[in-house]
């Protein structure tokens, strides 16, 4: 073992104490947050306060919609019998600057299940290799990890769209198009050129356009969510309108760093969802600006609600992200709500929707898969009399290396 256990022991001891202290202090803040939630709908000027904060461009948070902020919605009894669920997940091999082989690989796995049909579900896998000069050299330098992530997210959405359109033509049932993780692309400060960003946003929005055209219930499923946008809203609501600017400028975490999930664990009963909120954030702007086809006066703006997918006394809170054109159609929201809860019942323990779990399994790239790809590439190069030169560093590292799935924000 290469780490210093003695050093580590004392540090872990300190860290443990700190974490315990934080949890304890956060626990004390949950009642405060819940109290604010109970009164927020009575707050005067709430709408003005949020508008003012949103206008500042530096505040992020949840913006109430037609639904009262504190409202809870029970599990709908309809809408799950005839749904078709298409779930998509992706993983990738990042380029390795130590390797003689410069490439990246994106693997998209999709799972399609027609609930209640009695038919066997199907699986679709798509693998894209980026090994050409234009693939790996972007803006004059080696492609970066964030860019590969972006390309993967776009590929996921495009894949989802293709499959959703195919299914939609063959059945009248509600189509629920699920993506693992958030819907939106987020590109702040990652050194990707505007040209490349524009290109990717364009493809991403186009894919969402097509889903909107066919009225598929597009949703991003965020397991174990860490955000605090609703708490930000509650925090904001507890101040007077003229204090808003000061609140926005103060960067300290609200409610002592508590997450929305901790609050909704206490607020949502089994199978219940929260109200739908619109996300106020810089990364949502491109989606807010994009009009949804076939849905008048509606955009792709990312909306969220929290959902307790557990039907027992141990709440499991997830965040569901949906575009505005889904949020505005109650039947789609109900179908989504019901389907996600029911899908989560088959995976006892994890409460992860079955369809997403399967898509994830299909997408994952195993250690040996990487070697297969490199063997194939090497062989191909050898055919052209090129001997790939493994750098010594990789040879050292390569021995027991594991390639984990994409590290998603949850």
């Amino acid at each position, binding site marked *: 073992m290469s780490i210093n256990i003695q050093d580590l022991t004392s540090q872990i001891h300190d860290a443990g104490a700190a974490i315990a202290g934080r949890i304890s202090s956060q626990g004390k803040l949950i009642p405060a947050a819940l109290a604010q939630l109970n009164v927020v709908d009575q707050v005067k000027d709430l709408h003005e306060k949020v508008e003012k904060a949103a206008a500042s461009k530096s505040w992020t948070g949840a913006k109430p919609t037609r639904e009262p902020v504190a409202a809870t919605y029970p599990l709908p009894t309809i809408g799950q019998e005839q749904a078709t669920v298409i779930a998509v997940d992706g993983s990738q091999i990042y380029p390795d600057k130590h390797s003689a082989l410069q490439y990246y690989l994106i693997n998209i796995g999709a799972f399609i299940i027609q609930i209640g049909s009695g*038919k*066997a579900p199907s*699986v679709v896998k798509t693998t894209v290799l980026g090994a050409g000069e234009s693939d790996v050299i972007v803006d004059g330098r080696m492609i970066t990890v964030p860019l590969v992530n972006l390309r993967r997210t776009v590929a996921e959405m495009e894949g989802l769209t293709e499959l959703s359109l195919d299914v939609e033509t063959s059945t009248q049932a509600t189509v629920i198009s699920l993506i693992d993780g958030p819907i939106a692309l987020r590109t702040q400060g990652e050194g990707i050129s505007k040209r490349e960003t524009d290109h990717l946003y364009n493809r991403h929005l186009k894919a969402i356009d097509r889903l909107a055209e066919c009225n598929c219930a597009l949703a991003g499923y965020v397991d174990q969510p860490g955000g605090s946008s609703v708490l930000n809203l509650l925090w904001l609501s507890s101040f007077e309108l003229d204090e808003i600017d000061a609140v926005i400028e103060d960067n300290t975490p609200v409610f002592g760093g508590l997450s929305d999930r901790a609050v909704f664990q206490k607020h949502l009963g089994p199978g219940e969802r929260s109200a739908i909120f619109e996300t106020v954030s810089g990364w949502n702007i491109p989606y807010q600006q994009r009009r949804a086809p076939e849905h008048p006066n509606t955009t792709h703006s990312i909306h969220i609600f929290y959902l307790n997918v557990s039907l027992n006394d141990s709440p499991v809170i997830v965040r569901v992200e949906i575009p505005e054109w889904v949020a505005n159609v109650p039947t789609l929201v109900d179908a989504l709500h019901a389907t996600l809860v029911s899908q989560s019942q088959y995976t*006892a323990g994890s409460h992860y929707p079955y369809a997403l779990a*399967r898509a994830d399994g299909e997408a994952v790239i195993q250690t040996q898969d990487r*070697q297969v790809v490199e*063997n194939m590439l090497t062989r191909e190069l050898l055919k052209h009399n090129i001997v790939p030169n493994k750098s010594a560093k990789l040879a050292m590292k390569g021995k027991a290396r594991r390639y984990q799935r994409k590290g998603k924000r949850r």
Partner: protein
Amino acid sequence: MTTAIQIGQLLQSSIRGFSFGCAVPKPEMPHFGAFVKVPILNGTAQAIGTIYDIVLEEDDLVRQIVATPETPAEIILDQRQRQMPIEVSVLTLGYMQGTTVKSGLPPQPPLTLDTIRLCESTEIAALTNDFNFLRLIMQASEAPTDELLVRVLEHAVSVQSNPSQYLRFAGQYLAQLIGNDFQRLDTILRRLESLL
């Protein structure tokens, strides 16, 4: 680059054996007791072995589904057709250089991620024309030796021109190996007899 008989990629190896991964279901899915080969010595030779274990790797999803009451029909169907990764373990019995097949352990293990293929019947015949492979099987503590032995002989005998004589000699060789454990010998021989 894949051919019809390629069945998987090597995961780990030693002189005595190796394991490889592949997915189910596959029409040519490897069978217990089947003969497989994998390149060694920079591809100048092939190690030959027999499959002694096939393990479906632990799968969280299945475990979770099992714990759920009233699993819908679609999900059950899905699990049946799912491509599950399996790990196949192989006991090395010999190796082949050119057309020469030698029984016994090879000079080097195969390298990881080399491709495993099923043996041709001529290769099986060449390897099993020398009963040394029976000794290697009987000595393999990691394998279910008695079951494996019967299955391997079933494969071996299928490429012989005189199966009954071949089995008789194999039985005699086994009797020399494990004659002191009569119960075991008798059980194996009765199984071999049923192959005739």
